[in-house]
């Protein structure tokens, strides 16, 4: 199979991944997807990790420019700090794609995991399971972009279904997050023993709520709906009598692969489109039990939609051989 330039000589190509967030399973899995797709293409990858320092992240884009990389993936960050840096990269003739951060630039394709869809899928399942009237607890920390987008969907749902009665909103990012959220959730359910649905649209939140519900001995009564998934989450969802009923997730590794592929298309002179959306999948407890799924590999194997996103995949694009995992 013949490859378009510059991938006919991929050893000469270097791409940079400039990260804002890195700690945690999601980001680790995303990185592994990026690495795998870069390896499949045979290009060199340089990872610049700003560790949640937005100013540093902008500097790192400049640094990547100075290092003369051929393409840049921006992973998360703040619009305001990344906008100009991304423009500088374009000015230097370096193609850029951005994952989960809007840099307000039409020449920069947005890779998205559609947080609104994530929240929608999970909430639709909650409606399907519990009807249109329930008492809810909601876990949310404002100021975090993906959580803010999921929050918008939650607000819409509450308007559409007035039977949803939110009696408590809580949340914290104190780490270990699951432990801190568990403490809060314990207080919330002892103050509001009538809660039947917990919407926790981030898996660390859901994990914490599940611990609290278990400790309070209320697993039979409360149902948890969340977003994101990992091997550990699968185990927690499948525990006998688990309150964690469903989660909506995109496979972060797949998102990582798609990010590289979109960038590769730009490098080859093709247009991946302004928005490259990786569609989310709903994963229910029932489904995991029925198909006896115990980890991310099995999930990918049994749920093809989760394993692979058929986006940004022109014919010439080599795909990673191993299944997307963890």
């Amino acid at each position: 199979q013949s490859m378009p330039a510059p991938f006919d000589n991929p050893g000469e190509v270097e791409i940079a991944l400039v990260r804002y967030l890195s700690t945690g399973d999601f980001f680790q899995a995303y990185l592994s997807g990026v690495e795998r797709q870069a390896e499949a293409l045979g290009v060199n990858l340089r990872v610049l990790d700003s560790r949640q320092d937005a100013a540093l992240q902008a500097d790192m884009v400049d640094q990547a420019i100075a290092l003369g990389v051929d393409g840049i993936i921006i992973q998360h960050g703040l619009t305001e700090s990344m906008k100009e840096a991304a423009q500088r990269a374009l000015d230097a003739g370096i193609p850029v794609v951005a994952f989960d951060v809007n840099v307000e630039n039409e020449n920069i394709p947005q890779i998205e995991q559609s947080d609104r869809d994530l929240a929608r899928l999970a909430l639709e399942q909650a409606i399907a399971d519990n009807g249109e009237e329930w008492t809810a607890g909601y876990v949310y920390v404002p100021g975090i972009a993906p959580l803010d987008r999921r929050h918008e969907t939650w607000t819409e749902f509450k308007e559409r279904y007035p039977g949803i009665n939110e009696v408590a909103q809580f949340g914290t990012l104190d780490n270990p997050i699951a432990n801190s959220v568990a403490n809060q959730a314990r207080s919330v359910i002892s103050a509001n023993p009538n809660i039947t649905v917990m919407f926790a649209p981030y898996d660390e939140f859901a994990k914490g709520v599940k611990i609290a519900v278990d400790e309070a001995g209320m697993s039979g009564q409360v149902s948890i709906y969340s977003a994101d998934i990992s091997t550990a989450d699968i185990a927690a969802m499948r525990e006998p009598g688990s309150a964690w009923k469903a989660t909506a997730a995109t496979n972060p590794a797949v998102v990582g692969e798609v990010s590289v592929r979109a960038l590769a298309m730009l490098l080859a002179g093709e247009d991946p489109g302004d928005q490259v959306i990786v569609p989310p999948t709903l994963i229910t407890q029932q489904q995991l039990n029925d198909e006896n799924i115990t980890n991310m590999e099995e999930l990918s194997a049994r749920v093809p939609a989760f394993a692979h996103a058929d986006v940004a995949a022109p014919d010439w694009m080599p795909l990673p051989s191993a299944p997307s995992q963890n």
Partner: protein
Amino acid sequence: MTARDLAIRYGFLVLMAGLIVVFGVTASGFLTVPSAVFILQSVAITGILALGVTCTLVVGGFDLSIGAVATSALMLSAYVMVVWEMGAVAAVALCLLMGAGVGLINGFLIVKMKVPDLLATLGMMFVLLGIQRIPTEGNSIATGMALPDGTTATGTFSPAFLALGRLRLGDVLPLSVVFLLLIAVLVWSFLELTRHGRLMYAIGSNAQAAALAGANVERYKVAAYVISGVLASVGGILLAARLGRGDVASGNNLLLDSVAAALIGFAVLGASKPNAFGTAIGALFVGILLQGLTMLNAPYYTQDFVKGAVLVVALVFTFALTGRRTRSA
């Protein structure tokens, strides 16, 4: 006793009682046994860490590495059970060993290498934060996870281990609370009732004089860091048992909250110095505050605010009244 003395001694406890009354009235379900048990459970881990840091404060030191030790124990216990497929006993033993080892190294750096305590333990904190993530390349540890060599981890958290965080005695009292109370009593007795504790206080106040009075200053200082390391690893074990997986976490909040508890302890009973009883009360105080506020649906940022404000007010009250300046920890 003058009114002032009374205020110094019991001011903080009265404040805490007042808090309980206020929450009891405003938050339904606050004044119940499950709520009380839960408050204890929520502060068990920070409380245990705080008791450890109290020991280092007593000898005039400080341990910034406790949060990282706790998360290292969390990762290590998960690794031992999930990847190495060993049992609960091995996991606990290795974690305690790790904690003691870190304490030994901290003590060695501080006592023998003369590195200032804050520096040595800060360095150790960074080392641990890095090292605990290397075996899994930054991933959390859970059954079924893919290992760097391509295989899949098949071990599970042993039920005995999980029981440490989840079992309830008589269906009421969680084991972790039992551990907290036990450790609090142990540390308190050690510091207040034994000659070793007395010597540690002497060392903290004037190490040179303690040495000339025949105390083995270096050994006691190292011992304090070992105690701190071991207790931090106990905290990490309980955390792992509660979470049931090896979550990647920095432990910064564990550090801050335990330090807060230990420092609040200065104000309890007008001690004006590190003390185990005060530390336990300090941890409880923070737990009550957070439980009450959460039950009142206060957002997390108001909790931080109230925590800080009550802390400052309580401390001003105590320290301004005692009117004497203690060595700052």
